């Protein structure tokens, strides 16, 4: 359950990129989460809501893009999705491979609502 500390790190990144006066206008935070990043999207959403609920960022929601686990094989030169975490090429069985994607845990964008959108 390190999703809570991951959520806290996301809040800190928002605070660094968005001026304090605009925190309540943070509408969405776009994340990229890889298949072997070890983060459960539902738990992360729950944790993020839990720590922002009573704060100025209570309108913020997470938009998570799941990134598949892909490897490139240096033997048969294919790049393809593979069984999660497995380094052995599913086409030719070679282990001379490297990971192309799947370990991401990134904040890509923050969406700020127009001022009138959050006025009561």
């Amino acid at each position, binding site marked *: 359950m390190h999703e809570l500390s991951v959520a806290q790190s996301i809040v800190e990144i928002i605070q660094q990129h968005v001026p304090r006066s605009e925190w309540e206008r943070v509408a969405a935070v776009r994340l990229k989460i890889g298949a072997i990043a070890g983060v459960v999207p539902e738990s992360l959403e729950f944790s993020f809501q839990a720590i922002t609920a009573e704060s100025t960022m209570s309108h913020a929601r997470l938009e998570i893009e799941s990134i598949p686990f892909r490897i490139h094989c240096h033997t048969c030169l294919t790049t393809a999705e593979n069984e999660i975490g*497995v*380094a052995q090429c599913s086409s030719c069985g070679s282990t001379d491979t490297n990971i192309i994607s799947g370990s991401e845990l*990134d*904040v890509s964008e923050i969406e*700020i609502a127009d001022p009138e959108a959050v006025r009561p």
Partner: protein
Amino acid sequence: MSIITVERKVLEKNDELAAKNRTVFEAHGLFVINLVSSPGSGKTSILEQTLCHLKKRMRVAVIEGDVQTDFDAQRIAKLDVPVVQIVTNGGCHLDAKLIQDALVNLTLDGMDLLIIENVGNLVCPANYDLGEHMKVVVASTTEGDDKPLKYPAMFRNASALLINKIDLLPYVRCTLAELKGNALKINPNLKVFETSCTTGQGIEEWCAWLEQQRTNLIHP
């Protein structure tokens, strides 16, 4: 509506602190390993055996991480090895900040090896770089042979695997070839040792390898 482009790693702050720790380690010529596993695999017993072997040949310090209690630090202190206990109070992993704070309580001058025993957990510690030179994962035969496939990130990020409780193999549902095969499917570069803290099997071989790794990295 406006969009702010960020493109940052969520755990960037941890990675920055880990890089600082690494600088400190390198300045002291200190080789650092991060020992990870599920709870009960025998990390602390491996550590005790390792310390008994290595403390005659090099100066070793230990940082212990646990959710509660300083039981492990007490065990290590009995071996006359400098040890600092981190109690995470519910936290499921150690992070670079906790290590930075713990280092204040250790004398690093003249130290050759620092072993950090992480919180028993096969998931969360995989994400947090502490500044170590390598992660070493312990998987015991009693956990079965499918753990590498279930928790791939941990086995992928490790440099060595200790298959512990090897003496219990005849009594448990675990096929050694299967366990090794699964681990090497995740990480073909993993160095594998078969160990038992009861019979002492594999401990000498593991310690010799560890010593060699230190020599390769610190005094090539």
